[in-house]
């Protein structure tokens, strides 16, 4: 990933093809929510994109360096709760995660404790469904080694480096999910390239659905359909033609 120009409010990195982005939000829920919103505006990702918050967290009993996914996010300040839904089989094991506003040696919730997820999750889940918004943390302190003693830049770097293979594996699985969601529709806007009529927004939606249905029932011959537009001067007429095409197409199985 390449660092983006320095005049950004947060450090931002992007892959060469700009399909993967990273923003370093800094500490706290507000920073996390704001950075998520900023990245959404900057990168303008497709609606099928996945969002992953990665960072460090305390845990009462797990070993330092262990990685966990948040299966339940609790905002300690408001007691609001979210449940990220996991659909891959490569995800780190789930645990309860509590977001607090001040560093703490207590472990409310009995699971992970950190300072960002309750800002990130509700923001990112406006941009994607809950399966595509995930929070993954590496344990940086526990009941034996509290954060004051445990967390140093060098140790954090070492834990993150050790976690990277699993994290990248998980990120690959999320990218596959994003591709799958992105591929659901049937993009046949090309059918309109040869048309001389205009469609209203509603007609455009109807047109796309009709083409999708034709596609499902055996495909659309672009050349032939292109020819059907000869002499068609209105969107309504075009929709009627597509409906006619659909009328006698039964489903074939086997």
């Amino acid at each position, binding site marked *: 990933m390449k660092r983006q120009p320095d005049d950004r409010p947060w450090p931002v990195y992007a892959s060469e093809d700009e399909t993967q982005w990273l923003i370093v939000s800094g500490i706290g829920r507000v920073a996390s929510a704001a950075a998520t919103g900023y990245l959404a505006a900057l990168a303008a990702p497709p609606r099928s994109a996945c969002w992953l918050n990665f960072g460090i967290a305390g845990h009462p009993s797990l070993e330092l360096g262990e990685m966990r996914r948040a*299966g*339940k996010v609790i905002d300690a300040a408001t007691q609001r*709760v*979210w*449940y990220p*839904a*996991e*659909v*891959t*089989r490569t*995800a780190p*094991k*789930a*645990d*309860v995660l509590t977001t607090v506003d001040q560093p703490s040696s207590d472990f409310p919730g009995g699971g992970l404790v950190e300072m960002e997820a309750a800002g990130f999750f509700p923001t990112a*889940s*406006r941009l994607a*469904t*809950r*399966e*595509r918004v995930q929070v993954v943390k590496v344990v940086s302190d526990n009941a034996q080694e509290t954060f004051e003693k445990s967390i140093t830049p060098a140790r954090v770097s070492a834990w993150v480096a050790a976690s990277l293979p699993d994290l990248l594996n998980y990120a690959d699985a999320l990218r596959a*999910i994003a591709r*799958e*969601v992105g591929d*659901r*529709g*049937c993009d046949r806007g090309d059918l309109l390239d040869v048309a001389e009529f205009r469609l209203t927004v509603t007609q455009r939606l109807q047109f796309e*659905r009709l083409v*999708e*249905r*034709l*596609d*499902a*029932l055996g495909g659309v011959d672009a050349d032939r359909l292109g020819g059907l537009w000869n002499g068609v001067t209105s969107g309504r007429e075009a929709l009627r033609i597509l409906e006619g095409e*659909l*009328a006698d*197409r*039964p*489903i*074939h*199985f*086997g």
Partner: protein
Amino acid sequence: MDTIYVEEAVRDHVRTRELLQRFPKAAVLPCDSYGEVFNPHGQDFRLQKKNPALIVAEKRGTMVLPTPPGYGIGPKRNFYFSHLLNCLYDCRYCFLQGMFRSANYVWFVNYEGFWSAIEEQAAAAKTAGQGVCFFSGYDCDSLAMESVTGFGADVLDRFVDLPSALLELRTKSVGIRCLKEREALDNVVVAFSLTPAEVAAAVEHKAPSLERRIAAMRDLAERGWKIGLRLDPLIDYADFSEGYRRLVEAIFSEVPESSVHSATFGPLRFPKEMLSRITKLYPQEKLFAVPFELRADGLASYPEERETSLRAHVGDLLAERLGSERVFDCVAPVEAAENR
């Protein structure tokens, strides 16, 4: 099971404890109410079908619900109930994918509540001198998750003591051990959902093949269990007429007519909004690409003339074998489910 959510109220329930012992590696996460996990907006049912979590919950409120008028297999009073929400299988026509926001399984472990409600309704029907039937398997498959829930074994135990009430266990599962391990009960119908083999292969993902279901029916029939044939929803396709003829022939080549308690069939119908949600999940699914007609009752279905002809054809095929008294033209309780 990778992740199991457990409602606090049933954390110490015996069925919860047994479950957690069986899945020691699963992440167990507490929740106050299953709805916190199951109901929020912004979930993708289709994605969740890849790896559903299990939510262990307590069923509250009304435990058994009346079926819509006209739905039944003989008795005057008809109720349905669900110990599970969602299904192991992934049938493309299933209304659950349009009704629930989440594909996670919700398992209600307080079976005792179901038994009380069933006993109450059974007693009321007996007092009124009317027959009563309880249908299991509309928000789930009755037997597909038997190894996790043990529901089949438990419900059969209960109906031993309710001879005046009829139980329908609706399923596509061939996991029928809980039935094979005991004597057949006269007041239980094991009802298999069936579509022609080519339809089942194309749209009933993860479900046992038609051939295996028929073999399971034969096995149960040989052991004295009453079999229900459930040909709904009827799926329209190019080879509908011959496909359903072959289906009926395949069934009766293995299952004696005398073992069949009843046969039902019903149209493919969805409330308009439900169809819209399902279509958005599967925009390229051919089942939803054919024209649907919006009826006055708000349900979308095949054009009326076509639907009538499908129903007549399948009704005739079944009546030829069973006589009309064992054949029921039913509308599944999807509308009731949507409105509850």
